[in-house]
């Protein structure tokens, strides 16, 4: 007791700063105690949660598989299936369990199609999960809305498109991208209409996802992409270029040629690659004529095109570039020359002893 009093006395006599520091020390100790207890609680909670989750997951997996397996080949719901539906329905009042069921269904719906997939979609509707997804759309939190749209997408709920489309201009990228995926997943090329008047950029990541979805539905008629190539939204132009490549859109040749003068260099380069891919040979003259005005990257892209589309008449042009300072252009030019006329190539192969040139010649000769 004496020590304690001594301490108090000392403390009271200390300068203010020491008193403040001690106050901080006490606060931190208090925090450490609280946070340690919280950690203990948190860890046990997480452990228990995971255990429970695994258990429920197994349970639901078995139920879902039994449900699918119990289906006869018709659209009717069998009595056995009905009882599984009832069982699940009574089970999903808690968000925790509901989320597990949804992820269980998703685990399978990514992998299967056909009658079984449809049967899975019916299960989603019959158990009432649909209503929960719809209520998510009205949430104030963007991540919940995005989540709801994602669920509606994966279970192919076409009927609610109006409710989903409301979010076309949502300030959060994730919501917009979920909405775009919904439209394309369910309505394929028709779903792409949103490209006509979208002003926000579509990221490369989202573009890839949209294209992947489109490719799942192979026998679709490609809608006209002309308008998108002219879009003032550059990401829409990029997207249209990818569509043109995947679906071999020779019809948009004029639009593509116009894009060779686009102000964005990345677009110009993509266009050169695409024109080469589509074997549009008349572009060569256009590009040859303004070759000197092109940026180096465009020149390289153009030579890649030449490798693909060279003709005898290109020889003088190619000859000009076998000593180009750029490795790629030099390599392309020499390769084309060899392919056009091997004697000519042999005549020029000792033109210089510049090591890069020599290496390229040697490589071309042995391949």
């Amino acid at each position, binding site marked *: 007791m004496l020590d304690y009093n001594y301490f108090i006395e000392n403390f009271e006599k200390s300068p203010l700063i020491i008193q403040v520091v001690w106050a901080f020390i006490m606060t931190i100790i208090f925090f450490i105690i609280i946070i340690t207890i919280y950690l203990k609680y948190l860890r046990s909670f997480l452990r228990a949660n995971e255990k429970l989750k695994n258990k429920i997951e197994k349970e639901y*997996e078995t139920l*879902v*598989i039994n449900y*699918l*397996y119990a289906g006869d*080949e018709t659209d009717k719901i069998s009595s056995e299936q009905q009882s599984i539906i009832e069982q699940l329905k009574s089970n999903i009042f808690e968000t925790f369990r509901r989320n597990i069921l949804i992820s*269980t269904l998703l*685990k*399978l*719906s*990514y*992998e*299967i*199609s*056909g*009658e*079984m*997939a449809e049967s899975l979609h019916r299960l989603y509707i019959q158990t009432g999960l649909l209503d929960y997804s719809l209520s998510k759309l009205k949430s104030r939190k963007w991540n919940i809305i995005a989540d709801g749209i994602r669920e509606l997408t994966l279970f192919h709920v076409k009927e609610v498109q109006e409710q989903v489309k409301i979010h076309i201009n949502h300030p959060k990228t994730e919501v917009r991208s979920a909405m775009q995926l919904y439209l394309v997943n369910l309505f394929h090329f028709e779903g792409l209409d949103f490209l006509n008047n979208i002003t926000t950029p579509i990221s490369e990541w989202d573009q890839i996802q949209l294209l*992947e979805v489109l*490719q*799942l539905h192979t026998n679709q008629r490609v809608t006209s992409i002309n308008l998108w190539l002219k879009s003032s939204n550059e990401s829409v132009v990029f997207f249209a270029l990818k569509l043109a490549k995947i679906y071999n859109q020779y019809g948009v040749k004029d639009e593509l040629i116009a894009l060779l003068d686009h102000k964005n260099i990345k677009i110009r380069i993509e266009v050169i690659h695409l024109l080469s891919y589509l074997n549009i040979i008349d572009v060569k003259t256009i590009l040859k004529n303004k070759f000197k005005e092109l940026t180096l990257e465009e020149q390289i892209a153009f030579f890649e095109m030449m490798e693909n589309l060279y003709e005898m008449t290109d020889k003088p042009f190619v000859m000009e570039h076998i000593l180009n300072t750029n490795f790629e252009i030099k390599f392309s030019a020499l390769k084309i020359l060899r392919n056009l006329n091997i004697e000519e190539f042999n005549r020029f192969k000792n033109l210089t002893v510049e090591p890069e040139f020599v290496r390229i010649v040697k490589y071309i000769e042995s391949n």
Partner: protein
Amino acid sequence: MKKIVLAEDNSMLSMLLKFRLEKEGYTLLIAENGKETIELIEEHNPELILTDIMMPYISGLEVISHVRNKLNNQTPIIVFSASGQEEIVLKAFKLGATDFMSKPFSPNELVNRVKKILR
């Protein structure tokens, strides 16, 4: 009873396919990765192999290569690939795959193909 080895890391899909194919009277042996697949094949010498291409550590391609080149075995092999993997599918055929199905696929369609091959 004809034996089928199924290599698939999605436990639900493999369970579903197991049920579905066992109903048709086949025996299913399930592996979750490439290594297990090869062990099962070597041990049981199945009549048919179903394998996903994308598998941890030893890929589906390597499984095919192992069966055809190391074991010198002509067991039919159906590969599952994700959509858009044409190149990989081509490689699989080059290595000796018999058929392929691109995910998502219809389990009933798979059953039909299995029946056709094992007739």
